């Protein structure tokens, strides 16, 4: 099977930054595959997502290559990228509350998106939009078409964002922390929804998260990042049960567990010695 996305030696340095935010990152993604990118804050995982979407700010230095369906998507112009965006390459952003234009109803935004990329009549686009609101589990979709994002809860907003991201059945979805702005009870439902819809459409997904639990639930492979570099990459089972790198071990150890008795939480940001000590004391996972 040929790779849907092949990233090779990707480096990104923001304008004015002393060192690159990500350096020499390579990975590939097959069609229909869900790959998790994990790491702590500042590990470069969001930058990776922005680079793939071509949304890095002006003046950012990007090296390396990213082939999407064998076409280069790094360093190409807006004009070449625009036909890909939304239709083939899509994104689910972190904070649903600010991901929608507050001046227009959610319905009109979905309709506008559908009509921009597909030749649809107004009423055709409207009924398709209602269908999608229904698919993402929004009750009374006809009524919700006229709602504004500030009238909806965070979970509902994220459902709308997901509908917009998947309505054009993209080949690849880049989801950057799709649930971290939501409360825990909603998180599980949203993750289930994303998994279902991705499965249905046969899309691939790059799931950027700091939550290893989410990765275990949704991904087949995982990439662990630290300080802008890939520390470890492999099958989820292998990473979780036999992590090769020390950092991955520490990351796994710092994951809260419901079954273990309450004790001080191991962290990864402490000095190496302290981390080693705490892992000795409490074991991992």
């Amino acid at each position, binding site marked *: 099977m040929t790779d849907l996305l092949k990233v090779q030696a990707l480096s990104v340095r923001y304008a004015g930054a002393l060192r690159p935010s990500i350096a020499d990152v390579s990975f590939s993604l097959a069609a229909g595959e869900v790959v998790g990118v994990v790491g702590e804050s500042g590990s470069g995982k969001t930058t990776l997502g922005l680079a793939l979407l071509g*949304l890095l700010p*002006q003046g950012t230095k990007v090296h390396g290559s990213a082939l999407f369906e064998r076409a280069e998507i790094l360093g190409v112009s807006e004009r070449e990228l*625009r036909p890909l*965006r*939304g239709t083939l390459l*899509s994104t689910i*952003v972190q904070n649903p509350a600010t991901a929608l*234009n507050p001046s*227009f109803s959610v319905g009109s935004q979905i309709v506008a998106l559908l009509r921009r*990329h597909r030749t649809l009549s107004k009423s055709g686009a409207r009924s398709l939009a209602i269908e999608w609101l229904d698919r993402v589990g929004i009750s009374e979709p006809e009524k919700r078409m006229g709602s504004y994002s500030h009238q909806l809860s965070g979970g509902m907003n994220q459902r709308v964002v997901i509908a917009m991201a998947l309505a054009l059945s993209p080949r690849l979805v880049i989801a950057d922390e799709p649930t971290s702005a939501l409360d825990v009870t909603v998180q599980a439902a949203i993750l289930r929804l994303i998994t279902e819809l991705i499965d249905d459409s046969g899309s691939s997904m790059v799931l950027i998260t700091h939550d290893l639990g989410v990765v275990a639930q949704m991904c087949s492979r995982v990439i662990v990042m630290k300080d802008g570099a890939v520390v470890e990459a492999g099958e989820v089972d292998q990473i979780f049960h036999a992590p090769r790198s020390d950092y991955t071990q520490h990351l796994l150890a710092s994951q809260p567990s419901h079954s273990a008795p309450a004790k001080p939480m191991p962290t990864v940001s402490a000095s190496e010695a302290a981390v080693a000590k705490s892992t000795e004391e409490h074991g991992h996972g």
Partner: protein
Amino acid sequence: MTLEVDTSQVKVAAVERSRVSLRSTLASRVEVIVGGVLVLVAVLIAIIIPMIDPAASTAVGAAPSLVPPGLLNLLGTDQLGRDQLARVAVGYGISLTIAVGAVLLSVVVGGLLGLLAATATSAIDGLIMRILDVVMAFPALLLAIVVVALFGAGTEVLMLAIGITFVPIVARVTRAAALETTRQPYIEAAMARGARRGRVIFRHIAPNSLGPVVVQASILIAIAIMLEASLSFVGLGVQPPTPSLGLMLSTGRDFMVSDPWIVAVPAIAILEIVLGFTLIGDGLQTWLDPKKRAIAR
């Protein structure tokens, strides 16, 4: 026990805070309503009075000159026996037309320049803003006088003259608001969904940057009315015999000591409408302020 005391104090503070914000929201609403009523009164005077007797504003000798306000002439007559109410009404019409026209012009031109500056490369942004800085460096009245001197006095020229002086102000406000909006995640999201640049600017950035511009526009109308009155006062506004508020002030000066209502009438008329638009702008500012709105919620 201590815990209970603490929570009650927190509650008191929260209630107090919501009361303060509620009061400021109410106050801003009252401001907008009072301002709206003042503006409405002026607009009604400008529309209805000339309909009753279209010639009254320029009918010399229709009544004795310098009659104090009374039943026959509600606001008295001027030195040529013209009805002051009729003259104020026509003056209002001219002032409002020029002020609204000038502000519309500046909002369209300044708004587009501000949006362009906020979304273009920093070189173009710098170029636009530096040119506008030069325009802004001229005192508004002086700049307007230059335009009138170049093109001659007249309603359209006055609109243009006042409008040009406002363009940099509107452009700056729009640019600042648009820069703020550009940082919002939904702009990035729209781009990620493949929206065109023009569409991002006009559908996503522009409508969400409108609030401060509306506030500014309302205050600019008040300033435009004062500028128009100033230009008429020095003889660069609409030309006699057409009445204008500034002209009435200017010609009434000679009778200020003996017949003070001659200047009091146009002065109060200017005050009324300027106050109206200022109150609307002020109230809207508080109303639209997202920080205050967030607390009120």
